């Protein structure tokens, strides 16, 4: 029986799609059967980030409207046979699918997978409501910026109002140098505002740019700090008790982070 996990953020561009691709890949690397759903209908990206764009024949709207069976639309990953993508439609919009459709779709997938990850579009409108409709749990991605955190706070309220239980947080693109100088919100600052459990912290890493452009998840790259952080986050999502990794700079370790991470483990 799969757990349906929706990855959302409110604000755009904070790394929802990258997070979904990496968590999905990491879970599959650890042997779980994983499906990732791109719920961003009309602005599909997850296929590109996973390097599966040229394999799309059917999409989520084809499945919902009955033109294709789910099995036909699911695309197997290039490397991991246990990882599947259900792509979004590019030529349609968010209104092509209703929340009820999403509940039916995710329910249909539960039996065949251990994890169903839903990549939500930005915003709080229909697309977001579709994305969380079938979710058992919600993960919110934010960056340490005041505007992103403000939107995340709004999303926490909406997720709670939708009775999806308390969401968990992934703090993405942390720049230790800026935090050290006091020019960026720290993990502690963000948790103080949002007051939800922390699932993972991911450092800002240029390797992400190359990996998303190449269509290969960063978790394959053992040299990438962000890749390792996503791998740990995925293991935490799977229920393992992994301490938060210290986010380091080239020069050394930030002891301040170590202190925080020891206490605020999700």
């Amino acid at each position, binding site marked *: 029986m799969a757990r349906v996990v929706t990855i959302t953020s409110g604000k755009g561009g904070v790394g929802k799609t990258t997070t979904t691709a990496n968590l999905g890949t990491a879970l599959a690397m650890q042997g779980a059967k994983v499906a990732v759903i791109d719920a961003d209908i009309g602005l599909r990206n997850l296929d590109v980030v996973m390097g599966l764009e040229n394999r799309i024949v059917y999409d989520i709207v084809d499945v919902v409207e009955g033109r294709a069976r789910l099995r036909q639309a699911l695309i197997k990953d290039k490397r991991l046979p246990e990882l599947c993508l259900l792509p979004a439609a590019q030529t349609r919009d968010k209104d092509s699918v209703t929340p009820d459709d999403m509940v039916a779709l995710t329910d249909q997938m539960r039996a065949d997978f251990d994890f169903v990850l839903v990549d939500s579009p930005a915003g709080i409108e229909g697309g977001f409501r579709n994305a969380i409709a079938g979710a058992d749990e919600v993960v919110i991605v934010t960056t340490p910026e005041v505007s992103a955190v*403000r*939107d995340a*706070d*709004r999303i*926490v*309220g*909406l997720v*709670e109002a939708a009775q999806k239980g308390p969401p968990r947080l992934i703090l993405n693109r942390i720049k230790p140098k800026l935090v050290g100088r006091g020019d960026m919100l720290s993990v502690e600052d963000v948790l103080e*505002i949002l*007051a939800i459990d922390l699932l993972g912290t991911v450092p800002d890493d240029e390797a992400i740019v190359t990996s998303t452009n190449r269509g290969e998840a960063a978790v394959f790259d053992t040299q990438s700090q962000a890749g390792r952080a996503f791998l740990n986050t995925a293991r935490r999502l799977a229920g393992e008790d992994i301490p938060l990794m210290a986010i380091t700079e080239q020069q050394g370790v930030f002891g301040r982070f170590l202190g925080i991470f020891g206490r605020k483990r999700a």
Partner: protein
Amino acid sequence: MSLEQQRMSDLVSIKGGRDGIRMTLDAAAPWDDLLKALEYQLDQSGAFLSGAKVTVDVGDRPVTDQQLAAMLALMQQHAVQPESLVASARESRNAARSAGIIARPVPARPLTQATGPEAEALFLGKTLRSGQVVQFAGHITLIGDVNAGAELIAGGNVVVWGRLRGVVHAGALGDRTSMVCALELTPTQLRIADLITRPPAGKSGGVPEYARIENNLIVVDPWIKR
């Protein structure tokens, strides 16, 4: 408050309770003056009143169809829709009925006050997140945080046992004796009655603080043993 403003709010007083908002019009003043005072009050607290269940109390003054129509038109301009008219004169009640409003006789006992220490209060035990708004005609007590992007609007006082970082408006119906207090008083904007202030840049003193009006200014002080 200027003498003129004082007179305006004497002519038309706005109070609220659990069953809605009541506007009481002075029983003796000329109707035109009342309308002027009403317009002033609507300008002041229109945002609070719009969409609210409003009862208009005209006391024992006889109100004609034309007078009532003028008043309703004025309220409509401010998006305020009165639900019922309280009047002891039969003529007034007839005017209300023909305008499609519920007419009620003056109750024997006055309703509980919305402002002042005796007003009703709303208790909330949760954190208000960005985009969430709580509006209440009496006092509001909240245990939790009010995050930036959230709004708390009360006819009376506001007490927050937590961090107050959103927008807060106490005395939103015009009561200048209202106050706001919070364990951490760092609102985006603080309003009491018709005054608005922004907190100075930088962190707060790290102690509970309270805000109230003194000499036409919103004054914030630490909450210390007094």
